[in-house]
């Protein structure tokens, strides 16, 4: 490409050559070409020729490049739960390109000329799912699987403090005879039953949910839809309340699971609304409002807010005022509220009062009740993770109707339903179970907090659920996400405990960690403390970043 002198002489000259007011970069391409076709429709050809080159190049590349997995909807959040450093991310991408370069074989098949690549591709959605597998959430889980702690069998194993199993409630020993009927009859459980749950089980679940609110709310079984787990419940609601391209507001820190449950298959996005330690991680309505309007300005339609109560990961209980404020907010913007109340039955703070969103809307107009949807999970409160039964509770008949149909894709199996019916239908059993559960959690939590304090570690006050939201900012080598991941690595590899770093929960401040204590007995707490102490000492000796 030749460049003629006059066009390089001055900026004003360039502009006069009529580049049409484009950016300076565009100028640098167009102007020299205009020199080439000077005087003969220069501007037109000067624009058309580079465009033609560009498209021809694209076409050429497309015909000749190997098939790669599509990234149909590349969203900036395609690695939602990944707080991991780059090396792990590129590793998974490496796997994908590896697949794409498998040798093409002709075998006995006539290949059409269009067959440009060997490997058949998968969808954009699948691609995102594959990429996200190297986050600390998954890496930690894997380590626990490979080397699980056992008091007698493997005392040096990795202690699982990442996920919410409630393994210590041995309710079978509570009173198995009463809790479970003997021998479930096969013919009663083998045939097709409504995928959204048997009415007997819904009634039992409604009873359980009421018990969790200390009977201040009476839940109607006909407003319950059962499905195979909380992940499915959240996903079903996401499909029902929002279209692809819309978004939900989520105050953070939040459950790491939302990135999967809300986003993976629905095309719905999450807009994180940060809460700060200075506010005790309480939701600021002002910040929520601002996030709403910023989204609106960008052209993103907000369909709802997702809250959890008791809060995951902080364990906070939302006050009545909080809930009313949220309802007002939702009403004014005409959006939904998804209230994730999976830990409702695990309130362990005697002074704490759990208020369900159901109670708040009890006295409201229909038009407001219809915007509230509650998720409840039997697996959390009953230590039944393997049995996979969660509930959607809604006042909105259309949502219930759509959800019921959607549960054909994620139903609870009949034997499980029947088992649960006999287990939780006895009110006496339920009350006793809930009480014992709470007391146990309370004791373990108290021990844990005490132990952490001795190490100089604070946590937010957790009133419900299985988590401790722990402040380890003082032990990071740098006040950054990188520092947080380094510390997480130390906790996992030196301390051999698996905790969830705040970045997985989208916490805007680095240095916070989610510690799940439902797996611990009081005896385990000192073991955990020792492990943490080991890591803290390592940090101190490496001159970690101290104080904020």
């Amino acid at each position: 490409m030749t460049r003629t002198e006059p066009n390089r002489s001055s900026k004003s000259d360039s502009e006069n050559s009529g580049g049409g007011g484009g950016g300076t970069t565009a100028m640098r391409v167009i102007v020299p070409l205009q020199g080439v076709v000077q005087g003969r429709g220069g501007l037109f050809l000067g624009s058309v020729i580079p465009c033609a080159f560009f498209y021809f190049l694209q076409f050429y590349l497309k015909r000749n490049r190997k098939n790669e997995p599509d990234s149909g909807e590349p969203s900036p959040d395609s690695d939602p739960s990944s707080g991991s450093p780059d090396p792990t991310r590129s590793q998974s991408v490496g796997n994908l390109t590896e697949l794409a370069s498998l040798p093409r074989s002709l075998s006995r098949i006539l290949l059409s000329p269009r067959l440009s690549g060997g490997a058949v591709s998968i969808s954009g959605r699948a691609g995102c799912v594959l990429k996200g597998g190297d986050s600390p959430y998954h890496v930690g889980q894997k380590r626990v699987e490979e080397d699980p702690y056992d008091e007698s069998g493997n005392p040096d194993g990795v202690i699982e403090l990442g996920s919410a199993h409630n393994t210590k409630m041995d309710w079978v020993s509570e009173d198995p005879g009463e809790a479970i009927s003997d021998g479930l009859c096969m013919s009663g459980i083998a045939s097709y039953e409504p995928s959204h749950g048997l009415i007997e089980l819904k009634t039992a679940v409604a009873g359980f949910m009421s018990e969790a609110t200390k009977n201040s709310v009476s839940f109607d079984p006909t407003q319950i839809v059962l499905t195979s787990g909380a992940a499915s419940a959240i996903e079903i609601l996401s499909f029902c309340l929002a279209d692809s391209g819309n978004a939900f507001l989520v105050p953070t820190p939040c459950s790491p699971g939302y990135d999967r449950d809300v986003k993976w298959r629905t095309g719905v996005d999450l807009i994180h609304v940060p809460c700060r330690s200075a506010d005790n991680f309480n939701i600021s309505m002002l910040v929520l409002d601002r996030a709403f309007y910023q989204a609106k300005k960008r052209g993103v339609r907000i369909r709802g807010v997702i809250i959890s109560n008791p809060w995951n990961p902080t364990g906070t209980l939302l006050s009545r005022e909080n809930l009313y404020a949220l309802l007002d907010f939702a009403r004014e913007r005409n959006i939904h509220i998804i209230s994730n109340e999976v830990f409702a039955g695990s309130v362990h703070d005697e002074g704490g009062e759990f208020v369900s969103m159901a109670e708040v809307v009890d006295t409201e107009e229909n038009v407001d009740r219809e915007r509230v949807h509650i998720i409840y999970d039997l697996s959390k409160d009953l230590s039944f993770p393997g049995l996979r039964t969660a509930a959607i509770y809604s006042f909105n008949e259309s949502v219930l109707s759509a959800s019921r149909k959607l549960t054909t894709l994620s139903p609870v199996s009949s034997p499980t339903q029947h088992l649960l019916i006999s287990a939780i239908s006895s009110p006496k059993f339920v009350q006793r179970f809930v009480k014992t559960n709470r007391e146990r959690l309370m004791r373990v939590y108290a021990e844990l907090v005490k132990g952490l304090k001795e190490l100089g570690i604070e946590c937010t006050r957790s009133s419900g659920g299985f988590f401790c939201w722990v402040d380890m900012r003082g032990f990071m080598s740098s006040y950054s996400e990188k520092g947080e991941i380094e510390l997480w690595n130390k906790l996992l590899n030196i301390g051999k405990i698996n905790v969830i770093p705040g970045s997985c929960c989208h916490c805007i401040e680095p240095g916070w960690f989610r510690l799940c204590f439902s797996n611990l007995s009081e005896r385990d707490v000192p073991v955990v403390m020792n492990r943490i102490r080991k890591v803290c000492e390592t940090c101190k000796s490496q001159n970690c970043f101290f104080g904020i």
Partner: protein
Amino acid sequence: MGLPLMINNDDNNNNKVELSRVAVSDTHGEDSPYFAGWKAYDENPYDESHNPSGVIQMGLAENQVSFDLLESYLEKKNPEGSLWESKGSRGFRENALFQDYHGLKTFRQAMASFMEKIRGGKARFDPDRIVLTAGATAANELLTFILANPNDALLVPTPYYPGFDRDLRWRTGVRIVPIHCDSSNHFQITPEALETAYETARDANIRVRGVLITNPSNPLGATVQKKALEDLLDFCVRKNIHLVSDEIYSGSVFNASEFTSVAEIVENIDDVSVKERVHIVYSLSKDLGLPGFRVGTIYSYNDNVVRTARRMSSFTLVSSQTQHMLASMLSDEEFTEKYIRINRERLRRRYETIVEGLKKEGIECLKGNAGLFCWMNLGFLLNTNTKEGELELWDVILKELKLNISPGSSCHCSEFGWFRVCFANMSEKTLEIALKRIHEFMDRRRKVLNC
């Protein structure tokens, strides 16, 4: 993340909050005759003693013919198979606590061995390639999410199971482009039909991502021929697309030698780029008659698909209690061998009973060799050779004969007058009654015609 939307002025108070397009669409298909008949049955169900003139349900493909075998195994024979009595409360605890989306290894091994047995050992299944889902419905939807983007298409031969309209399309946003098959060659898939379907999609600017077949076919009740499968795989390789084979009725083929699974064809292929486009769906609902258990699987030769499916199965997991319960049963070689053999035999007898009974009335069925239903041709009874004509006849059969059968149009059949009639979800006595009602109807009709 989608186009910038025009913001609706919906900020004012007292507005009813809106739901999504998915929630309000009717892609769930539950308003079709396929499901409407079920409602009629629910309202007036046949019962031998209490309601002998009620509606007989012949629209539900459920297998109750071999239920006694299951019952005797689970309730008497083997304590391991009972709900938690193995190892007492500790056993229960293990069940309740296990929640890994990989699924119990013993259960996956049992499933693999069961699937091998059904195919007479002609194909091997690797337990690590098995992904568990809560039913075949979920498995089909999951595969669709994984293999196709919204607005892409899967090619599906007609007639097909009405549920696919929901399972493959509703939430996924993926389309179905039909591969038209007709009675001239017993509804077999031809290479020409495949090409036509593919071109149709291409002309409409729709990207085809795969072909989904059911083998044995629902609603035809017939297996896909080996040659047709090989041609199909060739086609998929040529177009560089996936092949999903829903083999949910594989254990219900009357004669084992007549069934060729796509797994057998792939077994002899070393080329990974060919193998990794093949995926099989299976479930215990039909062969074992355990629909309530909601156990489905995806078996894929593609590592990425296995990995992704496993993660996505978080939304549709099988309870560990169910897995544990079935693991011991499915790995019991003696039991499974006996069950498969006897089940096939009973289904064959039922099929022969109904087909012969219909033949006596001058009603022909497609020659079938598998499944829980027969594909009946009532074209000669239609007033008009149209969809309306077919639905009119269907309505008469439902209201007058009180038989709920499934009209071919709900299966997207391109010819009118075909109906799917299920025969395995009732006792032999009930089947006789159903045939009697048909006989009476045809008798009345003959008398009217002879007047």
